[in-house]
């Protein structure tokens, strides 16, 4: 049945699982299922018997005595009456009997009913499993009868051709992920830039004002705290521009937080600009002093610095201020 193909083999399901074998298996499962059904039936009978007994036991003490026919031997009965209608000898099992009242007997019987119920439940669960199994075997049998085939391809053959496509797929995936990352970055950068622009304008305004306005020291400290993250980023960024070696040490500690900080800073930044105006100007002044020589940093010309090529992460931290295309360029360089 097995036909050798260019890549792998085609085996008919019938040769793997002969239809009559599968049918036999399903038959066997069905047999056990029937057995379980019988058991379940018996259990259900027990349950109903138990309920009847509970009923009877509850009814008996309603009267002082009952007239009954007493069984005597196999076939004989004689009339008699039940007295002591509230006294029962209950068989607990293992030939142990106990004197109980009607109420106590009912309790015992109810407990017994619970155990029976749990047995019923478990048997039902087992039956469900068996049914699933049987249907599976049936399906296999019919599939085999229909002449379904199993196609198997050798792994080794796959290896050469498949790995390539795999790799392609992987890179495609990665590209997609990067694209998504970039677009997110883009958004954040836009926000950042807006905030920054606002800042810079304001800080320049503030510069002028600050000459006149003296702000209290702790207010400034507070503002500094707020600004700390942002400024650190700025600094690291500018240091990048300055010297690769220095940046390396600084970046090492900065790189990872930078990307995380980004979304956070943009928030507080926006909200705090108004309040931190004066102190920003103060700090910014200093930074501006530093940055003036390398002011191109903000224009986006830094892209081609030597350190840029060495790692994606660094690129990310840099790019927090850059346009998206840079990432893509880096990706391409890679």
């Amino acid at each position, binding site marked *: 049945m097995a036909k050798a193909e260019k890549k792998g083999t085609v085996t008919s399901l019938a040769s793997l699982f002969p239809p009559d074998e599968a049918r036999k298996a399903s038959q066997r499962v069905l047999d056990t299922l029937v057995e379980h059904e019988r058991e379940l039936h018996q259990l259900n009978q027990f349950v109903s018997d138990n309920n009847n007994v509970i009923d009877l036991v509850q009814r008996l003490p309603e009267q002082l005595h009952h007239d009954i026919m007493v069984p005597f031997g196999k076939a004989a009965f004689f009339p008699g009456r039940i007295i002591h209608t509230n006294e029962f000898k209950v068989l607990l099992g*293992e030939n*142990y009997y*106990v*004197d109980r009242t009607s109420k106590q007997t009912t309790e015992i019987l109810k407990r017994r009913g619970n155990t029976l119920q749990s047995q019923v439940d478990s048997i039902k669960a087992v039956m469900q499993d068996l049914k699933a199994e049987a249907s599976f075997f049936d399906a296999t049998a019919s599939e085999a009868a229909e002449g379904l085939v199993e196609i198997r391809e050798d792994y080794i053959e796959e290896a050469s051709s498949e790995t390539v496509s795999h790799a392609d797929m992987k890179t495609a995936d990665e590209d997609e992920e990067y694209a998504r990352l970039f677009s997110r970055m883009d958004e954040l950068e836009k926000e950042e830039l807006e905030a920054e622009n606002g800042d810079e304008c304001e800080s320049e305004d503030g510069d002028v004002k600050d000459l006149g306005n003296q702000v209290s020291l702790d207010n400034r400290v507070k503002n500094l705290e707020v600004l700390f993250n942002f400024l650190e980023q700025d600094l690291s960024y500018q240091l990048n521009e300055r010297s690769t070696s220095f940046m390396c040490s600084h970046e090492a500690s900065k790189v990872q937080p930078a990307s995380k900080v980004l979304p956070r800073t943009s928030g507080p930044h926006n909200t705090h600009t108004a309040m931190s105006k004066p102190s920003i100007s103060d700090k910014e002044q200093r930074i501006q002093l530093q940055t003036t020589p390398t002011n191109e940093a903000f224009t986006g010309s830094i892209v081609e610095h030597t350190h840029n090529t060495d790692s994606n992460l660094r690129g990310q931290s840099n790019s927090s201020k850059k346009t998206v295309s840079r990432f893509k360029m880096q990706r391409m360089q890679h």
Partner: protein
Amino acid sequence: MASSALKEQQRDLENKANDLSKLQKDIAKNHQVRKKYTIQLGENELVLKELDLLQEDANVYKLIGPVLVKQDLAEANANVRKRIEYISAELKRLDAALQDLEEKQTSKKDAIYKLQQRIQSLQAGKAKA
């Protein structure tokens, strides 16, 4: 010469098959006994539970043959406990025996399979010759 070897091996195979069927019977018996004991264990546990729920002064009887013999509750309790212990030990023993039997069964099956193969190859050789 070849045919005598073949015959011998076939006899061997028959013996082994008999052994195997005996083993399988043993396993089936073991299963039955175990089922019985499991049921008894369940019953005893129920009895114990009920006995634990009884008051101190409750009358407990044991049916011995045709007569109900009155028993002390504590005594009955101890008896049931002992019985449970015994049954559990028995079950454990049966489990060990079953495992042993199953191991034997698989090894027998292996041996039979190998024998069958050898006989087949012998027969094939004979057919060629």
